[in-house]
């Protein structure tokens, strides 16, 4: 379709990365004082704020499960987050689907049986969307949940991967995302070795698919050490404050 050259003859991508390179990740926990857990995460130019409240008394009586807690996810994308100013309404189908995906991912990983008849709320706010909104949201939610002291099997690390002209590429940005090339989102539990989410909305040849997923999984493993450092830094800071 577009005449845009997404991979240069030297093998570099449009933002200067190599095909198997993640974008720069900066994150911080304890950013909101009222929430039980919170995190701010930047993956390249994608910026997400996550807040976790709970586990607490359920406010939606109809959703109560008697033997475990349920997770509710509210996803919101700021009107100024993309190149074109556009307001998404609250009941927007795409936002709802994204929220539902995140909820399903975490209900499998959070040890919800420890808190029967309770509710965990995750609020996500996208401040800037530059591709990979879903993985960034999952990573930010993971940080916020860990920060809230909610037990989980492992970090849920998410990463997107795609394929341009049969070259698998990692962590795709907005330009690559909108270039009509297929992309896959992988959420992986690195220590457990299980896939929590695998989402693809395009068609991809089975041989390429395998390579793309393998690349995405590698990205997730790299992501884990980055998220781990963020959590440890946040904890160390609190420990220092408590003891010095």
């Amino acid at each position, binding site marked *: 379709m577009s005449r845009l050259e997404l991979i240069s003859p030297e093998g570099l991508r449009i933002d200067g990365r190599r095909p198997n390179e993640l974008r720069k990740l900066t994150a911080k926990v*304890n950013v909101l*004082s009222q929430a*039980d*857990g919170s995190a701010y995460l930047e993956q390249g130019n994608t910026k997400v704020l996550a807040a976790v409240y*709970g*586990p*607490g*008394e359920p406010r939606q009586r109809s959703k109560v499960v008697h033997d475990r807690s349920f997770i509710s996810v509210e996803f919101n994308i700021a009107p100024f987050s993309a190149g074109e100013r556009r307001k998404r309404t609250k009941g927007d189908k795409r936002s709802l689907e994204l929220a539902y995906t995140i909820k399903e991912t975490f209900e499998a990983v959070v*040890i919800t049986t420890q*808190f*029967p*008849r*309770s509710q965990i709320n995750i609020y996500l706010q996208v401040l800037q969307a530059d591709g990979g909104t879903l993985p960034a949201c999952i990573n930010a939610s993971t940080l916020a949940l*860990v*920060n*809230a*002291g*909610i*037990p*989980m*099997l*492992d*970090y849920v690390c998410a990463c997107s991967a795609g394929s341009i002209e049969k070259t698998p590429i990692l962590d795709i940005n907005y330009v690559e995302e909108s270039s009509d090339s297929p992309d896959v989102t992988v959420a992986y*539990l*690195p*220590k*457990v*070795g299980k896939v929590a989410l695998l989402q693809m909305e395009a068609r991809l040849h089975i041989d390429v698919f395998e390579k793309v997923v393998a690349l995405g999984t590698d990205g997730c493993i790299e992501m884990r050490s980055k998220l*781990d*450092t963020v*959590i*440890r*830094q946040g*904890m*160390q*800071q*609190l*420990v*220092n*404050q*408590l003891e010095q």
Partner: protein
Amino acid sequence: MQVSFSAPRAAPPVTVHHGDMDMDTDQTHIVTPGESITSDMQYMRGHGTRLDESSDPPILTSTLAGHVSRVNKLVSVKPLKARYTGDIGDIVVGRIVDVGQKRWKVDIGSKGDAVLQLSSINLPGGVQRRKLESDEKQMRTFFAEGDVLVAEVQSFFADGVCNLHTRSLNFCKLRNGSFVVVPPRLIQRTRSHFHSLPCGVDVILGLNGYVWVSKTVRKGGRHNETKVGLDEDAVDAEMVYSNKNEASAINKDERLAVARVCNCIAALAHEFKYINDTIIVYAYEASLAYPDVQDLLKLNVMEHITREAYEQMKNA
């Protein structure tokens, strides 16, 4: 309204320690979710851990980010920040959220609302009085939605719900003051959670992180010496369940003192310091350098009074 902006500041540098822990010596090791703690099968798994049976041999793994604590053979992970989990005998401050059949629901900042049964409060007319149907019908005259009270954790129901009681003269509806929330981690178990500060302010430090700051009540208040004889059991219903602040109106100075103590507690919580009566007094003294109470909400002032209070704590 005056608005002031402060420049952004870099967070203080922190060094992060990595590496495997030694179960026998290392007591303050930090682990994160999914990290293995030990494969030694002699240990029992406690809170915040799980046994990963997919690997061979099975490995004890952490499910939380926190410090590993070992009590004999029991290994558990204590998170730095988490919701309050009650223990029997804990003094908590809570707020009534619902009035139900023979019971109140109380928000104590825990994983679910706590329950206060009609049978576990002191009814007007003496401890020995039987509970009547009329009491059930007028439960709102004792506690209504929004009321703040101090209570003790009596027991737990089978599903883990906290059961409170107020069967003591210390526990009652709270008036004449103001409510502050701090992380529950910052309030440690002590002999007493009711404090009268020299500045004419009472503080109740709930173990759940809810704090009540009020004007010291002198006449007929709960800090009176225990009355002798039969009177000890008799509960003055008017006093315990009244919805009115003290008859003699609280004057401006008293209000300011309460507000100042509230702000001092908020400042200590902001700087993540353990909160007890001694450090509150020191913070209060340090805060007197700022005549305007609202100045205590400024970031640099918070830091200053916390630092000064903490220095005094260490020297004392």
